């Protein structure tokens, strides 16, 4: 199969065109995933652009995004495939007298009666796809095992039908918020990418890209203040989405340079816990 990207720099600049600001680490791993044909497991704090990365790569490569949102209790019939029982029953009843059972059996277990769920759908798709398995840490360990075959062989075995192999190797992204340790088997099959809070420059770029009409000066100030706040010992540090929310709020308020008073009044957008807000207010020597 033809590689999707020429080099790491193309990935980075391509992502920028679709408004995703990557660093060399992120771009390097996406590049590698394509070249090695391996899924990427993305971990990191909440709101740092893990899900967005998969969406943006789909946009960049002109692929369809297929998303499997994980939750506790997700099972095979929701993730992989399910037989369409109603349709099967109707078929059995319609042909009650004419066909032999073995004919009926072969017929009702054909792809016509199969309901493809996201994983199977991604594999059987004719057009290019990006498969996003979001928040994989939420499924039980046993369910995780369902993913292994897909992730290493890009195929699905259906007892009644045989093995269905991918027509093309999709780019696969799994995200995790790290609420539990994923199995070694899963990790071995994936490339691992830890997405952390962006550095000053990148966060500023993100703000400039995502908040319409914001001035360079304000974006810079926002990124600096957020960096200072993240250095504190907090219950929950501000995420990129919170930085963006804050930037948008400041724009709505018509603020051009942030002073202590305004920072204090809007800290609750950046931070969720009272103790964190108090700490940040004090640290930035914003008097209460």
């Amino acid at each position, binding site marked *: 199969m033809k590689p999707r990207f020429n080099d790491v720099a193309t990935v980075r600049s391509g992502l920028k065109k679709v408004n995703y600001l990557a660093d060399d680490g992120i771009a390097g791993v996406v590049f590698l995933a394509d070249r090695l044909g391996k899924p990427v497991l993305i971990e990191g704090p909440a709101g740092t652009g893990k899900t967005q990365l998969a969406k943006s790569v789909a946009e960049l490569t002109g692929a369809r995004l297929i998303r499997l949102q994980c939750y506790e209790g997700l099972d095979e019939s929701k993730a992989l495939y399910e037989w369409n029982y109603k349709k099967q029953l109707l078929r059995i009843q319609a042909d009650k007298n004419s066909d032999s059972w073995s004919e009926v059996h072969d017929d009702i277990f054909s792809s016509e009666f199969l309901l493809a769920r996201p994983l199977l759908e991604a594999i059987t798709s004719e057009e290019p796809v990006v498969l996003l398995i979001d928040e994989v840490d939420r499924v039980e360990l046993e369910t995780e095992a369902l993913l292994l075959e897909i992730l290493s062989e890009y195929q699905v075995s259906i007892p009644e039908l045989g093995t269905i192999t991918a027509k093309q190797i999709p780019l696969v992204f799994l995200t995790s918020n790290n609420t539990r340790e994923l199995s070694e088997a899963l990790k071995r099959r994936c490339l691992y990418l830890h997405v952390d809070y962006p550095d000053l420059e990148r966060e500023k770029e993100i703000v400039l890209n995502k908040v319409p009409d914001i001035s360079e000066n304000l974006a810079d100030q926002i990124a600096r203040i957020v960096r200072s706040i993240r250095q504190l010992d907090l219950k929950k540090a501000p995420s990129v989405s919170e930085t963006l929310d804050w930037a948008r709020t400041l724009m709505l308020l018509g603020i051009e340079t942030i002073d*202590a008073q305004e920072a204090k009044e809007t800290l609750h957008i950046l931070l969720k816990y009272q103790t964190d807000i108090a700490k940040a207010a004090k640290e930035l020597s914003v008097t209460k």
Partner: protein
Amino acid sequence: MPVLDLMSGFIAELRNAGLPVSLTENLDAMEAVKVIPIEDRDAFKYALGATLVKNNAHWRVFETIFEVYFSLRGPEYAITQDGQPDDFWREMQEQIDQVNGQGEGKGSGGGMDSLTPEEINAMLMRALMSGDQAMMRALAKQSVQRFAGMEPGRPVGGTYYLYRTLRNLDLENMLQKLMDANRESSQQDLTSLEERLEKDEFESRIEQFKQEVESEIRRRLVADRGAEAMAKTLRKPLPEDVEFMHASRDEMQSLKKALYPLTRKLAARLARKRRHGRKGPLDFRNTVRHSLSYGGVPADPKFRYPRPAKPELMVIADISGSVAAFARFTLMFVYAIQNQFSKVRSFVFIDGIDEVTKYFKSTEDIGEAINRVNTEADVVWVDGHSDYGHAFEVFWERYGKDINSKTTVLLLGDARNNYHAAQSWVVKEIAKRARHVYWLNPEPKSYWNTGDSIVGEYGAHTDGVFECRNLRQLEGFVENLT
């Protein structure tokens, strides 16, 4: 040496450092280096990391080893020979001349070597002021060459050279100098917010410069001694293996960082376990719902899961000197997962004992609560040396009656009793009333019951004494506890 040859030593060293690199991962890494050129340094590093490091807590160890093995690679990292200025140095020379206002002609061909230490210092300050990355890197190299006093074959560690270099640069006072200069040069008065932000910016630049110096020293050491020997001297334990009793400040920091993800995972795992523990009675509706997948045959019966009662916990911790860090981490750990218990009470002692539950109740901030424990708790009775016997006696007198058959009691400490009376009858009485009593000891097993340690005497009355030297052991114990 070609990259592929370097790889085997590199991966062997990762394994030596405790990273669990499997065969598949090894092969993936070999594939990765074929498609990303080493000159693309950051991408190259992350690509290797993506194939070899599947746990973020291991990243720092990986980075250090990476630097050692690949530090001499990539053009911008070449070591310039003394007295041989290359293009970069010539360019730099022009800058220097400009800055000094001396035009052409000064110190012909000397490059930075002709600069006095004061001039280097002034240039560094300007570079830090403006955040000029290339200049900072060049000055880091130059400073090491001039000030570190490195000689081939000298058996001295990197920290010594780092210290010498930084001292010559007077880096300690740099932040203040930068702040002063900044205040002078700005038109209006800076608000306190602006000052604070400037300070953070300068601090991060100084830190970056320090790292450049450190890397330069490391590069030279690797050139002198070879990667393997260097990696060996730099070998550090993974955060989960750092000993509580001997953690440096840096390691404390990384321990603290590793603690929260760990507790979060543990809490999720425990909650799940509680839900899926024993099978209860048949869940009729759920079974019927699933039977649809089997053509209406209830082939996959579903059960309800009873929720076992959560235990009550009492933690009694020695917080004197050497075991203080251990007590702190264990308390943090326990409170971070306090939802897993129906009730948590905590007591700390040295030779006196005090209940500290209220500090944890009055705030969401565990760190702050721990600080209050350390500063406000009334734990000194006579001389501030551990006296387990006395502390236990007072505990029994005041709180013994609160222990019941639902209580699990954790005793934390090295049981080094300074040859005071043991009063181990208290532990025996506690064990009679409580559901379980455990002792956690941060010392290696081989030290137990040596000198004034009497952990055996106390332990005899408990349900078990556990070695708890690091986060890994602590996590393992807590998991089995609930």
